[in-house]
C-alpha cells in the first residue's frame, strides 16, 4: 500500500496513532527519499562538480539526475532551466533581487494577490522599500477566490512584475494561474507563480502555463527539508545577474574581475544541499511513479469526504469555500479558540496547524486572528478524517 511507503505516518502521539493533517506545513517523505539521502551519505559522500575522483563523479551525476527528474515533473524545457534553492521563500527572494530589482524605479508597481503566503509578500515589500516601487494587490471575495474584475486596472503600464500563488496554503483555493499569466503577458508583464502547494497536489506544466518563473518547496512535495527548485525561462536566467557570490558560480576569479559561470551554476553559489537535491529528485520520481492523476483523484475524494464530515461539528465554519479547491480546510468553531482546538485534538493524535498560516492578510480580510487548518495528502484516509471529527467534538464538549 502506498501509505506504507511513509514511515513517518506510523508514529504514536500521546499514546494515540498519529493522524497527520498538517501536510501544507510540511509533508511526510517516502522511503525512496530517505534511501536517496542516506545512499548519498553512505555511498557517494563527496562534493560535486569539482572532483575527478569516482565518488565526486557519482555524486555529481546523482545531483544532476535529480535536476532532470524535477524538470520532467514540471515539464521544463531543460534541466538547465532549474535552479536548486532552499525552498519557495528563497526562490521568490532570488527573483525579486536578481530579475526584478534592476527593472524598478520609484512609482512602478508590483502586483500580487490577497491570497499570498508571507513568502510572496515580504520579499516584494523589501524590494519596494529598496526601490520606491508600490505593491498592488488583487482582491478576494468571501469564498476566498480572487476577484478579477479590476485586473485590467491593476495590470497597467506601471506594473513591472506580477507574482501569484498557485494554490493557497490557508484556504486551498486553486487560482486560475493560466488566465493570470495570459493577462500579465498581454500587458508585457513577466510573472512568477508560487507553486509551494501546487507541486505536491496537481500536475504542473510550466510550458503549458507559460509562466516566466515557477518555484516549489521540496519539503512540501515529499522531499527533504532545505530543498527546492526555481524554474525560469532560459532567456531570463541567462540575462540575470547572480544572486549569491561564491564558489561554483564563477568560471574565473581574479581580484580585479570575475567571469560568472553558465546557468544554472551561476545561481548556485557554494556547496549546495547535495543530499537534499538528490532526495528531492527521488521525491519527483516517486510522484511520477504514483502518477499525478492518481494523486489528483485521491485529493478530490478526500476533499469531498472531509467537507461533508466536518458538517457533523455544530458551529464549525469553514473559511475558504472556493469552487476550485485543494483538500485544505481552514475552520473556526464558535466558542473555542483555534489554539485550544489544536492542543486538545493533538491529545487525540491529530496534528493540525493553528494560527494565521503565514497568511495574515487573509485573516485580516475575514476579521479573524487565525484558524485551525487540516491539510490532507493523498496518503491520508477517510478513517483519519473521522478521528479528526471525533476529536473536534471532544474539544467542543470540553468548552461547553
Amino acid at each position, binding site marked *: 500500500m502506498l501509505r506504507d511507503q511513509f514511515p513517518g505516518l506510523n508514529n504514536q502521539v500521546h499514546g494515540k496513532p498519529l493522524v497527520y493533517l498538517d501536510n501544507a506545513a510540511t509533508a511526510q517523505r517516502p522511503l525512496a527519499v530517505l534511501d536517496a539521502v542516506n545512499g548519498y551519505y553512505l555511498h557517494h559522500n563527496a562534493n560535486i562538480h569539482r572532483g575527478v575522483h569516482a565518488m565526486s563523479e557519482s555524486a555529481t551525476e546523482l545531483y544532476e539526475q535529480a535536476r532532470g527528474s524535477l524538470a520532467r515533473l514540471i515539464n521544463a524545457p531543460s534541466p538547465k532551466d532549474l535552479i536548486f534553492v532552499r525552498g519557495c521563500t528563497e526562490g521568490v527572494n532570488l527573483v525579486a533581487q536578481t530579475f526584478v530589482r534592476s527593472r524598478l524605479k520609484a512609482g512602478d508597481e508590483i502586483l500580487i494577490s490577497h491570497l499570498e503566503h508571507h513568502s510572496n509578500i515580504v520579499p516584494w515589500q523589501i524590494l519596494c522599500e529598496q526601490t520606491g516601487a508600490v505593491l498592488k494587490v488583487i482582491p478576494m471575495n468571501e469564498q476566498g477566490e480572487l476577484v478579477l474584475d479590476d485586473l485590467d486596472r491593476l495590470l497597467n503600464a506601471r506594473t513591472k512584475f506580477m507574482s501569484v500563488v498557485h494554490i493557497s496554503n490557508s484556504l486551498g483555493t486553486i487560482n486560475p494561474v493560466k488566465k493570470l499569466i495570459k493577462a500579465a503577458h498581454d500587458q508585457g508583464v513577466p510573472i512568477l507563480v508560487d507553486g509551494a502547494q501546487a507541486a505536491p497536489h496537481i500536475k504542473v506544466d510550466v510550458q503549458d502555463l507559460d509562466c516566466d518563473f515557477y518555484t516549489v518547496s521540496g519539503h512540501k512535495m515529499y522531499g527533504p527539508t532545505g530543498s527546492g527548485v526555481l524554474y525560469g525561462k532560459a532567456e531570463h536566467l541567462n540575462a540575470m545577474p547572480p544572486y549569491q557570490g561564491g564558489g561554483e558560480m564563477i568560471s574565473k576569479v581574479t581580484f580585479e574581475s570575475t567571469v560568472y559561470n553558465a546557468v544554472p551554476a551561476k545561481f548556485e553559489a557554494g556547496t549546495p544541499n547535495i543530499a537534499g537535491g538528490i532526495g528531492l529528485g527521488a521525491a519527483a520520481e516517486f510522484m511520477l511513479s504514483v502518477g499525478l492523476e492518481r494523486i489528483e483523484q485521491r485529493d478530490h475524494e478526500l476533499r469531498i469526504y472531509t467537507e461533508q464530515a466536518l458538517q457533523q461539528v455544530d458551529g464549525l465554519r469553514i473559511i475558504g469555500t472556493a469552487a476550485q479547491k485543494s483538500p485544505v480546510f481552514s475552520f473556526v468553531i464558535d466558542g473555542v479558540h*483555534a*489554539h*485550544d482546538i489544536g492542543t486538545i485534538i493533538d*491529545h487525540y493524535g491529530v496534528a493540525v496547524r493553528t494560527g*494565521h498560516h503565514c497568511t495574515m492578510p487573509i*485573516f485580516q480580510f475575514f476579521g479573524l*486572528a487565525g*484558524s485551525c487548518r487540516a491539510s490532507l495528502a493523498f496518503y491520508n484516509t477517510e478513517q483519519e478524517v473521522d478521528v479528526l471529527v471525533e476529536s473536534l467534538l471532544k474539544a467542543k464538549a470540553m*468548552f461547553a
Partner: protein
Amino acid sequence: MSDLNLLYKQAILEHNRNPRNFGKPDAWTHHAEGLNAICGDLVEVYLTIKDGVLEAVHFDGESCAIATASASMMTEVTTGLSVAQWQARFAQFKQMMDKRSQDQTFAELGQVSTLVTVKKFPSRIKSATLCWYAVDAAIHGRPTATTE
C-alpha cells in the same frame, strides 16, 4: 486525558468564559498589543497609570482560553499595584513560567499561580505569558510585545 484537564482546569475555563476587566475602556494612559505569531493570539492591554500606580488594567483581543484566562487573572492581581510592585510580580511570574525552573509558585500571584501547570505544555507557555509582556511594553511605551 488527565493531562488536558490539568491544562484546561475549571479556573481557566471559568475565567475564559467570564473574563474580568475585559473590553476596551473609555480612557487609558498606556496601551500595547501582545502578539503570538505562532497561534494568532492577540491581546490588547489598556492601563491607567496615575502617580506611579496601575489604577486600572483592562484587556481585550482575540485569544485562546489560556491567554484569555491568564490576562483576566493578571488584571485582578495587578490592579492597584505600583509600577515597582508590578515589576516584582512580573519577575515572579516569569520565574514561575520559566521552563527550566521548578514548579515554584508565589503567594503574591494569587490565582495566577494556577497557571503553573501550563508548563507541561511548552507550546502554550507563550499564551500564558503574552498579556504580561504586553503590560510591560505598555508601561515602557512600546506599542507591541511579541513573545519570543
